[in-house]
């Protein structure tokens, strides 16, 4: 059950800031990986641009529209992953997924992303929090088709 306290947990100040002023909110024309993420149930839609050099994410950006949770998640993901290797990114995704679905292991490693812990109290919003991440994985895998939450 979610109450007002849990609502504050969900909409943490950091999340609201990122949703209003997202970081790396830009297309990267030279990116060698790109994918779209789409939630057909609510219309959230993001494009993720990733430039990978020597197995590391040298640049990452996103564009699109979505709710506060999905946008902040995309924004903070780009901050977190810049400079990480693809393997590291995969590991962070797994832990982030665990966090928002309530199966958290070691949140310490997630740094600022730990603010998304409140999402686990709102199961219907897990898709919002992970949309950009699914698109990122598709981009790194080189899938050309848009990924869908459904």
């Amino acid at each position, binding site marked *: 059950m979610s109450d007002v306290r849990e609502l504050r947990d969900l909409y943490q100040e950091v999340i609201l800031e990122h949703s209003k002023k997202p970081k790396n909110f830009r297309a990267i024309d030279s990116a060698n990986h790109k994918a779209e993420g789409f939630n057909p149930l609510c219309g959230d839609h993001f494009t993720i641009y990733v430039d990978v050099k020597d197995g590391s994410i040298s640049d990452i950006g996103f564009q699109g*529209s979505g709710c*506060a*949770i999905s946008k902040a998640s995309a924004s903070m993901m780009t901050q977190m992953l810049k400079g990480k290797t693809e393997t590291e990114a995969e590991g962070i995704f797994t832990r982030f997924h665990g966090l928002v679905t309530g199966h958290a292991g070691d949140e310490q490693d997630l740094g600022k992303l730990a603010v998304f812990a409140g999402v686990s109290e*709102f199961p219907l919003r897990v898709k919002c929090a992970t949309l950009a991440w699914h698109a990122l994985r598709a981009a790194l895998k080189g899938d050309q088709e848009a990924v869908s939450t459904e």
Partner: protein
Amino acid sequence: MSTVAKFPEKIHAASLYDVQKVRKDFPILHQTVHGRPLVYLDNAATTQKPLAVIEAIESYYCHDNSNIHRGVHTLSERATEAYEKVRVTAQKFLNAADYKEIIFVRGTTEAINLVAQTYGRKNVGSGDEVLITAMEHHSNIVPWQLLCEEKGARLRVAPINDRGELLLDEFEKLLGPKTKFVAVAHLSNALGTINPVREIVRMAHSRNVPVLVDGAQAAPRMQVDVQALDCDFYALSGHKVYGPTGIGVLYGKTSLLEAMPPYQGGGDMIASVTFEKTVYNRLPYKFEAGTPNIAATIGLGAAFEYLNSLGVEQIEQHEAGLLAYATKSVETIPGVKVVGTAKEKAGVLSFVMDDIHPHDIGTILDTEGIAVRTGHHCAQPVMQRFNIPATARASFGLYNTREEVDALVKGIRKVQEVLG
């Protein structure tokens, strides 16, 4: 009613719609969500069920359950009688000319698919056109797209204005020699617009084009008279008229239904079967293959009777008052914009908020115990028309109150407080 009109004191009595008394008929409403009294404003998605409906289903399973149109035993006879009685109730509810014109289906979606796959496949060919409007629900778009794709026909879409009203002149211009079918919503689920169906039918019929009306949202909110509308098909869903899910009604004019091929093959829809030839059953059974959802049909009958007992006109008035009050209240909140401001409107209040995504609105309202729908409402082309990804939608039912509208307004202010 004319007898009432002669006695002014009775008019007064008739206009007293006792919503608190009505609420007692709906057990589900009396609960708290996140510690707040439930405010259910998602009636366009599905309506809650009165005890009369719940008890009718329970009673059927406790006393009468049996297969219909088959056995000679007592239970089968009872079940058949109860099932067929609903057909007559539905006929009267829609004022159809004949009970044979009432086909039971799973819901509006199946009703529309039935017409597209039978009448449509038989009568729409290569180069022909099917005309719909820009405010249709996906269920009144995709079945026609499938048909057009199969037949090499073209789907034409009549535009709407910024208020969400059909541009009737444009609609008429699109009605041409190639138009073989027209399908329109009676009441838009995303915008609340009431379409001028009588006028649409008149325009189409003057060119010998039949019209299907998607009545999913209108049937629970307005008096529907299919003979007065003169439409050829009318579709509705049981769960939106306070009945069960999995049951709906397709009304069709006898002459058209007679000429249509069957939809699905199976038991009950046949008169005789040999491996060489099958003779189809008469109307309406030709379109009801297999054992139907008998319990839900009986529940639907109870729902129609419940609506009749309250008076559809009374419900219409009650909801009109609520919508006007809600529109006025919500519009005055800075940063809130109502989407769909048609002059003729009912039941639905879609809105967007500056810099706040509808999903976030929905989550925060939920913590206040308020249930609204957020998203594209299965009408993505409507969202594209207004250049928005989604809306929040409050939709009213016969049991909603002004206090609940006040709770919604308070909830919206809370949304601004949390996210603003």
